[in-house]
């Protein structure tokens, strides 16, 4: 049946002497997979901000042109 | 009437490209020599870098000759379409009624005649220098003859993809190397299994099959790549 295979948390962390391998694998996986999700979100957000800023600048230029016109 | 006429023209265009390329290569003979010189020098340096004992050299000879032939081919790929791209004749090839597949094939044949075939022909000399056992010479020449043809075909696609880039050497190496790997494995192991007495027919048959596949696919891919890189 499905049950927790380790009697204590320290045993779970040690993994019968192979803890360093198993947990460093888990850490590497965590880092790589997190980066794969976070990187596109962050860059997409900064791209949206950039588009916003360009749009604002364009509008400003339009208004400026209109107000300085005759 | 138009059918025979057309076929005549296609054959003529194919021959014309081969003749033109051979002539222009003959005029810059040093270009042909450079992969050969690279091949010779690197194999000469090899025993100086490791250990000149017969036993060690005989073990690594098939692999080393094959790797150096691969690198020499890689070195020569950039010239495949470069000049045509720079002087605009590539656009003419694409616009001409001649199928681009045949033009690419003609250029690949010329490339193989001027790099792959000479490499395969001088390989026995290098085999002697690296004390290759006597059973390995024919398999070496034959496997290199077929193998360099495959490498020219694959390389044509790589060269076509990178011809429009300013610094193409690194990109070319990166995209071509993984595709060369099966050729290297089969080729070098054909020679070593022949040396070990297992015969070379299996490896040569595999190389032949790979050549047939490459003949079908690679000029097509290279033609597509040339269309892309010529009109961006």
């Amino acid at each position, binding site marked *: 049946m*499905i*049950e*927790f*295979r*380790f009697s204590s948390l320290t045993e*779970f962390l040690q*993994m*019968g*002497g*192979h803890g360093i*391998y*198993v947990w*460093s*694998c*888990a850490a*590497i*996986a965590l880092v*790589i*997979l997190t*980066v*794969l*999700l976070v990187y*596109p*979100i*962050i*860059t*997409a*957000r900064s*791209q*949206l*901000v*950039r*588009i*916003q800023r360009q*749009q604002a600048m364009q509008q400003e230029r339009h208004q400026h042109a209109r107000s300085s016109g005759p | 009437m138009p059918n025979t006429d057309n076929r005549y023209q296609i054959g003529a265009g194919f021959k014309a490209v081969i003749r033109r390329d051979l002539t222009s290569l003959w005029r810059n003979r040093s270009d042909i020599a450079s992969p050969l010189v690279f091949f010779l020098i690197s194999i000469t340096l090899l025993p100086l870098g490791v250990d000149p004992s017969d036993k060690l050299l005989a073990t690594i000879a098939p692999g080393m000759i094959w790797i150096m032939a691969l690198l020499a081919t890689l070195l020569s790929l950039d010239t495949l379409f470069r000049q045509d791209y720079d002087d605009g004749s590539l656009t003419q090839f694409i616009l001409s009624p001649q199928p681009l597949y045949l033009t690419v094939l003609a250029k690949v044949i010329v490339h193989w005649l001027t790099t792959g075939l000479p490499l395969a022909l001088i390989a026995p000399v290098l085999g002697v220098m690296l004390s290759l056992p006597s059973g390995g010479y024919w398999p070496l020449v034959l496997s290199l003859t077929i193998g360099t043809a495959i490498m020219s075909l694959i390389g044509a*696609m790589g060269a076509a*993809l990178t011809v*429009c*880039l300013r610094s193409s050497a*690194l*990109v070319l190496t*990166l*995209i071509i*190397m*993984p*595709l060369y*790997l*099966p050729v290297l*494995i*089969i080729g070098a*192991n054909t020679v070593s299994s022949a040396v070990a007495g297992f015969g070379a027919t299996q490896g040569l048959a595999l190389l032949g099959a*790979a050549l047939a596949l490459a003949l079908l*696919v*690679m000029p097509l*891919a290279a033609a*597509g*790549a040339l269309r*892309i*890189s010529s009109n*961006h």
Partner: protein
Amino acid sequence: MAWQWFHRLGSPRWFYEKTSRWLVWFAPLTILLMLLGIGWGLGFAPIDSKQGDSYRIIFIHMPAAALALAGYYIMAIAGAVGLIWKMKLPFMVMKSAAPIGAALTILTLATGSLWGHPTWGTFWEWDARNIFMLVLLFLYAGIVVLAEVYPSRDAADKACAILALVGTINVPIIYKSVDWWYSLHQPASIKLTGGSSIHWSMLYPLLLCILAYYCFYTLALILYTRREILVREARTTWVVQLAQARLARGKGRPAEDAL
């Protein structure tokens, strides 16, 4: 119009708006599946009699390897669809798939060598699967680099698609030749999955991990593609409106907007 759905599938705007709604439930589901699968594998699956607890790396390693390989085919198919039907979206999917596949290949190599140390006694063994993964990494790297260095985006897309398609033909050949080479040079070392009969208590968590990785791949691919859409369609009205709507809603909830 039977083909309407297909052409709508090629529209970046349709994709962006549709996935905005999907992501709300798909992203939490994926993360939940990942945690469940790996948690089950690391904590609740029985211990392996031969390898001890180090075998638990399989739950991280093997699905990553499967996805790294499948990802190459997904990338090539996307490229082929883009080439044949001349659609924009498949090219964006193709370009997005390359870095994800490369990252998963690196993950496979890293976890594989960490698994190799307790089992083989070395971090790097010239094993058929190791070499194949390394070559797969080079194949991905070629696509990533080619997409970056090409002068025009349109040409870069088509060039990458051609390279990916040629690579697809080559992947099985590379695999077979490496396998052949390995059988010539190495005596059979420790078989990592001894026998084909694997007990359900190990198989089920492994299957769950594979499912979780597939979901993860889809999620990452969607996120990367959405980013690529924003970059490429930056001048279209709908993206500009999207950016302005984000501004209007204020900067209080930026994370949700980006999702």
